[in-house]
């Protein structure tokens, strides 16, 4: 035995049984009393289901957005002062443009990794909102929004709204020809609000369009105000999730009163950290190989110029589609104008959609009279009416999404724009009524089928020596068997026994 070992051991004994970690935790617990809560947090059980990762994609895209956004904010200049460009991108050399546009081109071409960060930021925004929408659909179709989780549903809908608003604000910042047109449209939409629209528009933009206040204002909203609120709401979303514990699908050993899955530490922590790395990695790969929003090709914004086939980012497309297909119904009376052709599709309609989302838990409770708390999820098939209602709304919104490219569709298929317009009008109005009964039928048939949601094992037919045919059920699939273990509480390392004693039954020794 060398001296070094003795020293190490005596040091360890001085620190106590759990070494430096134990010492640090002692110090922390003396001051904050975290040991008990911290232990039960490490034991927290996370149910395993692929659909629970959708919210994680949203969360980690948000992290990517914050990180890449900080990088971009170091180089972006939110100013509409006019400068003459003499940077490394030669096709724009000598053009006059706003500082905002020039700085965006510069951070794309002159700053090391700048283009990658900008593309990652844009991709992460698109993925973020996409993941939120799919996560919301999961929560909706499985009934996870029911009591006691209505408040977290409300926070989630608010987060989606804020994310869409912030996506639009960020999209506007480069001040390129396409985003500038988007701002012009936003101005006109605000203007269309009856009674107070002109005042609202003048206060938001600091005057008549375009003015010089809009870029700095959008910038501070985009990088501070909206993300600050979102960060607070994301935290609240997580805290409620921990406090109320996860929902889970029905299954072996799963009841309304327990949670079955993997413990927070170390299994879930390893899985979710790995997933964060994958989300970040995929975003980086998209940023590397899939060009997005090449603003240097669009050129700087000039209110009297415009590009063909102008479309917003995907999450704004349903509003653009609504604006395209709504008829020209301007209302004039008593010396006033209500531009219904704008107000209805771009103000009232989104208000109704998000209002319906906010109100859904209360609406469903009114219909079902179900006030009991629910921790076990529905299979979408076991609630055919809810499922069909959700599918109907998604069908109409998908049609509006498609309607945002009427001109592209008409060109691509060589049909008249008028045909496309009327087809989309009909599809938007009719699709929910087609989708509802189809979804209802599929769901209720699936629900009526016994053993739905489980893989059926094969019937193995064997011939006996006597020539008789016998059918026997094949054994269950191997990975089903793995989950057929009855769930057990997380091991608690509660009682330490001195090492020299011989371990009793139920006592194990582990290497430290």
């Amino acid at each position, binding site marked *: 035995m060398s001296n070094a070992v003795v020293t190490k051991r005596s040091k360890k004994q001085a620190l106590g049984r759990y070494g430096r970690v134990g010492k640090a935790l002692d110090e922390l617990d003396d001051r904050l009393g975290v040991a008990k809560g911290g232990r039960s947090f490490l034991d927290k059980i996370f149910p395993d289901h692929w659909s629970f990762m959708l919210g994680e994609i949203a969360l980690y895209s948000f992290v990517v957005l914050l990180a890449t956004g900080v990088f971009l904010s170091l180089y972006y200049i939110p100013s509409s002062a006019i400068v003459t460009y003499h940077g490394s991108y030669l096709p724009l050399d000598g053009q006059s443009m706003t500082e905002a546009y020039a700085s965006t081109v510069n951070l794309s071409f002159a700053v*090391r990794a700048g283009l990658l960060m900008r593309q990652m930021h844009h991709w992460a925004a698109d993925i973020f909102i996409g993941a939120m929408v799919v996560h919301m659909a999961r929560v909706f179709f499985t009934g996870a929004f029911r009591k006691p989780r209505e408040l977290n549903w409300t926070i989630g809908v608010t987060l989606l709204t804020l994310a869409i608003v912030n996506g639009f604000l960020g999209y506007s910042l480069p001040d390129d020809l396409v985003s500038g047109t988007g701002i*012009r449209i936003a101005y006109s939409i605000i203007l269309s609000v009856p009674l*107070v*629209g002109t005042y609202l*528009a003048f206060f*938001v933009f600091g005057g008549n369009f375009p003015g010089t206040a809009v870029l700095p204002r959008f910038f501070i909203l985009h990088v501070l105000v909206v993300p600050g609120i979102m960060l607070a709401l994301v935290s609240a979303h997580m805290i409620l999730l921990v406090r109320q514990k996860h929902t889970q699908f029905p299954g072996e050993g799963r009841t309304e009163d327990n949670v079955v899955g993997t413990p927070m530490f170390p299994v879930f922590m390893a899985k979710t950290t*790995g997933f964060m790395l994958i989300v970040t990695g995929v975003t980086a*790969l998209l940023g590397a190989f899939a060009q997005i929003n090449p603003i240097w090709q669009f050129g700087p914004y000039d209110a009297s110029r415009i590009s063909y086939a102008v479309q917003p980012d995907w999450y704004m497309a349903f509003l653009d589609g609504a604006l395209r297909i709504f008829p020209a119904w301007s209302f004039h009376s008593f010396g006033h104008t209500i531009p219904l052709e704008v107000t209805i599709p771009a103000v009232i309609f989104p208000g109704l959609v998000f209002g319906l989302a906010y109100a859904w838990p209360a609406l469903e409770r009114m219909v079902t009279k179900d006030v009991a708390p629910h921790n076990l999820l529905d299979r979408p098939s076991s609630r055919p009416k809810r499922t069909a209602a959700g599918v109907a709304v998604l069908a109409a919104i998908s049609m509006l999404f498609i309607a945002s490219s009427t001109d592209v569709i008409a060109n691509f298929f060589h049909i008249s724009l008028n045909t496309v317009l009327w087809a989309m009008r009909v599809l938007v109005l009719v699709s929910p009524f087609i989708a509802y009964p189809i979804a209802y039928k599929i769901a209720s048939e699936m629900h009526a089928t016994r053993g739905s949601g489980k893989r059926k094992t094969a019937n193995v037919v064997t011939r006996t020596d006597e020539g008789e045919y016998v059918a026997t059920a094949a054994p269950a699939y191997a990975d089903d068997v793995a989950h057929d273990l009855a*769930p057990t509480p997380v091991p608690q390392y509660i009682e*330490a026994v001195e090492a020299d004693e011989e371990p009793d039954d139920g006592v194990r020794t582990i290497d430290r």
Partner: protein
Amino acid sequence: MSERREHRTAVSLNGLREDDPHLQPAARNPQLVERVIALTLLVGVVLIIGFGAAYWVNAAPWTLGATMGGGLFFLGVGLIAWAKYLMARGPFVEERHVLATSQEDRDAFAAAIVERGGGVVKRRRVLGGLVGGGLGAFGVVALFPLLRSLGPLPKGTLFHTDWRAGSFAVDITGRRIHVSDLAVGSIVTVFPEGTQNTDRGQAVDQTVLIRLSNENFTTQKGRESWGPMGYIAYSKLCTHLGCPVGLYEQQLQLLVCPCHQSMFNVNNGAIPNFGPAPRPLPQLPLYIDAAGYIRSQSDYHEPVGPGFWERS
């Protein structure tokens, strides 16, 4: 042997044995899986180092993204595989604690608010009213100047452009448009002289000047003198949402807005014949001066661009 055992700590696993299936890895062959995971993580580490190198030599953006993204991806896959195949496979269970507290606690909480707080307010209504009123007034007072100072009041700004009686129509370079400049059927974007390089000029005053052949042209009532020698001018702001009506279909004599496909018939007062735009493009009255330059008789006779409440 006894030396080693001193370094062990024995702990109770509340009933779980060392060989309990819940604590076993899910992988059938953990040694092999561990090797595969190690290889995956190694690829990730190599790519991350490659990212550092690529950044150092200022490599192309796609190289940076490929090394960084690939590295993080492989590290993530390795970590998840480790958790999934080599850590205790479970499943584990925990009981839910009932969120609701006891009725006594609720009553005590409600009583604390209603009795204690309510008693104070009831006894001192005036004080409560003054505090509440003061804070409420502060809210209103703080809100009003905040909103008001965000921007000027609209007043008449949406009703006027910078076109005046006698304004010269100039193109984006500031060159005055002469009657001989445009061939029949051609089009140019014009501004009142002096505004062509300003934000407001480009956003509000922008006007399309078209030289039409006189065939098929329908003069609107009261506008008989507005389009001399086939020169006709319309506001370039779409009456739907204010996008520039930037596409000109010469064959069909249509101005098309690329944003939402509103189409305006230039031969007939720019009346929309397709799409969501509710009104014709306002027409600018023109005249040709003695030197042959195109000038405006006056401002537009109605507000340009999208609709708003104060517009009649």
